[in-house]
């Protein structure tokens, strides 16, 4: 994992890993002294990893959710599924590449998989618009979901977005309407829907593909009504640089998987490898696949009418107030 891409609090761990790797290269069978030192450092590394990653602050989790090496939807589709066949376009305006999807097989189960895709390199980031959908992205998603429902295929949705795109074209083409319609129509889809937040779940941009019978979140993902930076800009509007206050806003918003689970909004938190999904994408993909297949199995036992009734009831109950 020596790519030079890390976030500040990971640095001591990464540096120690690098040192151990270098020593291993020098070590030979004869050099017992070096071997012993490596074992000592490995012990130290194990402790350091645990110290660093076992009690993460909310802000650190958000940083992991945005980690430059974090696996994106396309990688999970690659790792989890076979025979993926990508589908394109909303049949009205364009093919929004911030949202990818198509038929795929999860083990033997044919599903429709849909994901918000961020892109790794600058070129990819631009092509996928950093995972920020335009209305055509939401409409493409709905088209694919309806297709799945019509042919009795369950739907898996991978959420990872810093928000729906705020731009002129997006407003002209009805960003709000696209999101609202998706929410309403997803409520009626006659097939099981499992949603997994794999990275960032920012506001309406996430909810626009976020209605499901089961909603799961990865351990270091977040889901909130507003991102920490935008929240900080509102709360500390007199501050010369409100972005500095984003960690405080993150504390106030309680957006982590653990928070949202505690609020009863999502069904389960899926464990990540120690240090985050990017440290072992294969294992992470397997964790997601197993969890999703188990949920599909559970949901497939329900008659469609009951499935939809329970979906409605799930969302009907959300909210806290006094009366």
């Amino acid at each position, binding site marked *: 994992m020596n790519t030079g891409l890390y976030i500040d609090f990971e640095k001591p761990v990464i540096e120690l890993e690098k040192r151990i790797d270098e020593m291993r290269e020098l070590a030979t069978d004869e050099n017992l002294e070096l071997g012993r030192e490596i074992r000592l450092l490995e012990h130290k590394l194990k402790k350091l990893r645990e110290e660093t990653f076992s009690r993460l602050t909310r802000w650190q989790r958000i940083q992991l959710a945005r980690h430059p090496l974090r696996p994106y939807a396309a990688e999970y589709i690659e790792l989890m599924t076979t025979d993926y066949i990508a589908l394109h376009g909303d049949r009205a305006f364009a093919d929004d590449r911030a949202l990818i999807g198509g038929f795929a097989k999860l083990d033997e189960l044919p599903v429709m998989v849909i994901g918000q895709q961020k892109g790794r390199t600058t070129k990819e980031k631009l092509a996928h618009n950093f995972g920020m959908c335009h209305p055509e992205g939401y409409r493409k998603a709905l088209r694919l979901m309806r297709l799945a429902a019509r042919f009795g295929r369950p739907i898996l949705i991978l959420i990872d977005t810093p928000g*729906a*795109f*705020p*731009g*002129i074209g*997006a*407003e*002209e*083409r*009805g*960003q*709000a*309407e696209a*999101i*609202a*319609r998706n*929410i*309403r*129509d997803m*409520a*009626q889809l006659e097939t099981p829907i499992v949603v997994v937040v794999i990275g960032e779940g920012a*506001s*309406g941009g996430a*909810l*626009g593909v*976020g*209605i499901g019978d089961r909603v799961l979140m990865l351990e270091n993902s977040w*889901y*909130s*009504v*507003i991102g920490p930076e*935008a*929240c900080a800009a*509102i*709360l500390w509007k007199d501050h010369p640089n409100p972005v500095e206050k984003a960690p405080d806003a993150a504390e*106030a*918003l*309680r*957006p982590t998987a653990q*928070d*949202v689970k505690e*609020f009863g*909004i999502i069904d389960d938190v899926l464990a990540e490898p120690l240090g985050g999904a990017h440290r072992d994408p294969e294992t992470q993909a397997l964790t997601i696949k197993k969890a999703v297949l188990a949920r599909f199995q559970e949901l497939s036992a329900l008659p469609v009418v009951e499935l939809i009734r329970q*979906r*409605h009831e799930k*969302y*009907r109950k*959300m*909210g*806290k*107030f*006094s*009366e």
Partner: protein
Amino acid sequence: MEWFRKNKERLVRQEKKTIPDGIWTKCTSCGEIVYGRELERLLWVCPACHYHFQIRYNQYIALLLDDGKLDEFDASLSSVDPLHFEDRISYPERISKTQQKTGINDAIICGIGRIDGRTISFGVMDFSFIGGSMGSVVGEKVARAIERSLDRRIPLVLISCSGGARMQEGIYSLMQMAKTCVLLAELREAKIPYISVLTNPTTGGVTASFASLGDVIVAEPQALVGFAGPRVIRQTIRQELPEGFQSSEFIRDHGFLDIIAPRAELRKTLSLLLEYMCGPQAGIHQSLKEGPAT
């Protein structure tokens, strides 16, 4: 030198007035000075530029419903503080101060009323309550208003005015978008009409949920309607926004709004729409067979 000193006590910070009172009012859009009584007679619409002043829930009730009367439901619903949210003041303190200032418990008033004798489930948002923001109370009250429509098979009319979701309630406020839209799916299946009325401003989570899902959508002229706020868009794309961007007229021209109704015509517009969408559903064949009344 006593005369030279400024009397600081006189410098009282003026609350920004969105609702005109006092004798003379300056139009926030064109600067025209209008006499208060005259403005009231004109339904708080500037006679010079037709700017629609923001008005409160009770003014819409008076304007739209028969006898200016709403049989209010769920008035006791009140916010709690699920996140223990602190900004400059704590959220519970913000709520109780706003309740005292506005005389209402949250940003929407719902109930049963009539328009030209037709019973409807009605809800009207009030911007003076934390910018008309939607938290659990607004979401729940909208949900119950939809359920009253379903239970009694009466049409739904919602007047929106909102800056979006209520940040202080975090993920709970986001999920109110889901709650309201899921219930609107049921209303749609039940073939019960829903008219959404957009007023200045309707943005964010309210636009991206129930406000955009009317069978027919009506807006007041020149209202700001959009998903992202203009400031956020300007910051993101780093260019100036076109003239009239995100106005009622703009979204109508882009196909997301049916009717722009000046305030004076709003009641008539709603009444006629309800007549078309309610009433006996004999079907086209039967009405043709019977022929026009002679």
